[in-house]
C-alpha cells in the first residue's frame, strides 16, 4: 500500500430513478416541441451513443416535418442509418432543457436511445447497476 494515494470524490444528485422494471437501463422522459405538445417516451441510456435517437413516429407526433431537420449519417457497429435533428424540450425527472435530438429516417427503427449530447451532457449521472439505480441531477460546474 506504500505510495498509493486514495482520493475520495463525491457528487450530489437531486433524484434517484429505479429501472428494475425494465430489461435495460431505461429512463422515462417527456419530449415536447412547444409548451402544448408533449409526448411521454421510454428511452434506453447508451453512454456509447453520441446523440439521442428516437423512432420517427415521435417526430410526427411532435409536429415536425422529419426531413426538414438537420441530416446526419449515424454510424453503428452494424452499419449506418440516416437521422434528422430537431430542437425539443427534453424532461427527465423534474429537470428539463432545450436541446437537439435526432429521429431516425427508418420507419421501423427499433429503439429510443439517449446518449451523450443532449442528455448525459446536461446532467450529473451516477449508476449503481447492482441495485438498478440511476442517480440524476442537473450539471453543476465544480
Amino acid at each position: 500500500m506504500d505510495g498509493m494515494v486514495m482520493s475520495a470524490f463525491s457528487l450530489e444528485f437531486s433524484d434517484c430513478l429505479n429501472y428494475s422494471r425494465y430489461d435495460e437501463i431505461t429512463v422515462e422522459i417527456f419530449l415536447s416541441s412547444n409548451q402544448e405538445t408533449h409526448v411521454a417516451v421510454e428511452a434506453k441510456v447508451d453512454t456509447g451513443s453520441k446523440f439521442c435517437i428516437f423512432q420517427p413516429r415521435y417526430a410526427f407526433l411532435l409536429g415536425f416535418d422529419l426531413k426538414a431537420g438537420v441530416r446526419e449519417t449515424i454510424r453503428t457497429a452494424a452499419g449506418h442509418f440516416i437521422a434528422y435533428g430537431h430542437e425539443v424540450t427534453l424532461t427527465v425527472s423534474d429537470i428539463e432543457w432545450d436541446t437537439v435530438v435526432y429521429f431516425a429516417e427508418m420507419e421501423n427503427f427499433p429503439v429510443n436511445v439517449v446518449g451523450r449530447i443532449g442528455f448525459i451532457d446536461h446532467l450529473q449521472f451516477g449508476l449503481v447497476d447492482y441495485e438498478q439505480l440511476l442517480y440524476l441531477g442537473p450539471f453543476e460546474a465544480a
Partner: protein
Amino acid sequence: MRLREMTANCIMGVFKTVLMAAKTLPHTRKSSIGKVDLSREREWILQHGHLYVGEWVVLGDGALVGHSADGSEIGAMVEKARAEGIEAPYVKFVREGSEPIWMGWL
C-alpha cells in the same frame, strides 16, 4: 511520489478549468410540466403488453387510449388523449419479449 501526484492533479485541474471555460455550460431548469413518472404506464405494459405485440399503444393516466398496428393512426389517438386532458400521452411500439438481446451503442 505524493508531490508528483499532487502536481499532476493540480495541472489536470487547471487543464479542466480551461476546457470547461471553452465549453458552453448546459442550461437546465425545473420541469414546467411536473415530474416524469410513467410507473403506471410501465405497469400497464407489463400486465397487458403481450396482447398488443406489433402495435403502437397510446396510454394516458395508466389506461389505454387506443392502439393500432398502423403508426399513421397514432396521431389521432394522441390528439384524443390530449383533448381528454392528458398532457403528455405515453406512446410505445410493443415488441415481442423474445426478440434478440439489445446490445447498445446503437
